[in-house]
Each structure stands twice: as structure tokens, then as C-alpha cells.
């Protein structure tokens, strides 16, 4: 499964909610305001640090740039829309709206 999260973890529980359902071999893509979770050194970095140990985590480049997020939690990979499509080719998807 590809799980997408588009909410800031600082005001929404979406990422935490999603994490309960992520299985080994699944993939997590952060997009839109969801990319705020990718930043290193915040009160929510630990959640991401734990997730990257279990599954592949991606963050969408255009959204990172728009929000000036440059220091990512190690292990998070940056991808673009083409990479997003590639993930959809490989996995069924659930959007955590």
C-alpha cells in the first residue's frame, strides 16, 4: 500500500492515525502540508525517525520547496510528481484526507 498524508502533523493527527495502519513493505508519501512532518529537529521528528526504520518514506519536492523545508529527517527520500506516479504504478493507494 501507498499511504499519502497531506496535513501538517503539528495541527492534525492524520500522520499518527495513518501510522497505526502502515504495514511492513508499505510506502508513505508526504505531500502538500504533510511535508512539514519531514523536517528534522521538531517535536514530531521522532515519529518520522521511527517510520523510516520500518517503511520507505517519500516527500514531494515541489511542496518541500514551497515551504522552504531543506533539512529532512535522514532516510526520507525526495521525489517529484513523476516519482509519485511511479509509486502509484507499484502500489494500491489510500489517501489519508
Amino acid at each position, binding site marked *: 500500500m501507498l499511504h499519502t498524508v497531506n496535513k501538517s502533523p503539528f495541527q492534525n493527527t492524520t500522520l499518527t492515525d495513518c501510522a497505526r495502519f502502515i504495514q511492513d513493505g508499505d510506502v508513505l508519501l508526504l505531500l502538500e502540508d504533510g511535508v512539514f512532518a519531514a523536517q528534522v529537529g521538531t517535536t514530531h521528528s521522532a515519529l518520522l525517525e521511527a517510520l523510516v526504520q520500518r517503511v520507505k518514506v517519500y516527500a514531494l519536492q515541489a511542496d518541500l520547496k514551497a515551504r522552504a523545508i531543506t533539512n529532512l529527517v535522514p532516510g526520507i527520500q525526495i521525489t*517529484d*510528481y*513523476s516519482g509519485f*506516479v511511479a509509486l502509484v*504504478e507499484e502500489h494500491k493507494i489510500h*489517501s489519508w*484526507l
Partner: protein
Amino acid sequence: MKIAVCIYEGPYNHEASDSAYNFIKAAIDRGHEIQGIFFYHDGVYNVTKLMEPPQDDRHIANRWSALGATGIDIVVCIAAAKRRGIVDDVLVPNVRISGLGQLTMMAIQADRMVVFGD
């Protein structure tokens, strides 16, 4: 691969519409067939020809219309649209109003359905 896309939020107000558009362009570039685009909830506001954004901004309705001109089936949910005042008269070209049966067919026939919302 046949990909369907569902959009739940209106233009400009939420990024969902932009994310969906960028995703669809990339999917086409990678050679996929877009099975259909379905606008639901406030998403129905995406395709009104009455919108007039600032000149230096993107024109979201025209962008969808141009995609429709390439043959992609773009459907606006009639129930959601009626409630919100989106009618045939205000639609940009290459977009049609239809029922939730269209969404059902997309969900069944597309290899993947990707939902963009808030």
C-alpha cells in the same frame, strides 16, 4: 495503466486541485491512460467558466478544459453540483455533468484511483 483521479476541493482554496493536476500531467508523461477525472464535494467548483483569476495566476478551469480537449473524460457530480450552483451553463468546454455511477465505473475499471482532497 488506467488511472482515475477524484478531486474533492475547490480551486485556489485548497492545494488538492493543483496536486491532482500536477499528478495527472506526470501520469500522462509516463504513458498512462487517464480513465477519468471526477469532481465531487467542493471539487465541482473547479470547472466554472466564470472564474477570473488575477492575470499572473493560473486559470484552473481552463487548465482542466484543456485536459478535457485531449479526450480525457472529466465528470462533475450532478448531485454535488446542483447543491452548489454549478450548472451546464457555467461549465468550461470539454467537461460534463453526470451521476455517481460514473465514479463507480471509474473505481471498478481503473487500475488505480487516486483521491485528492483536504
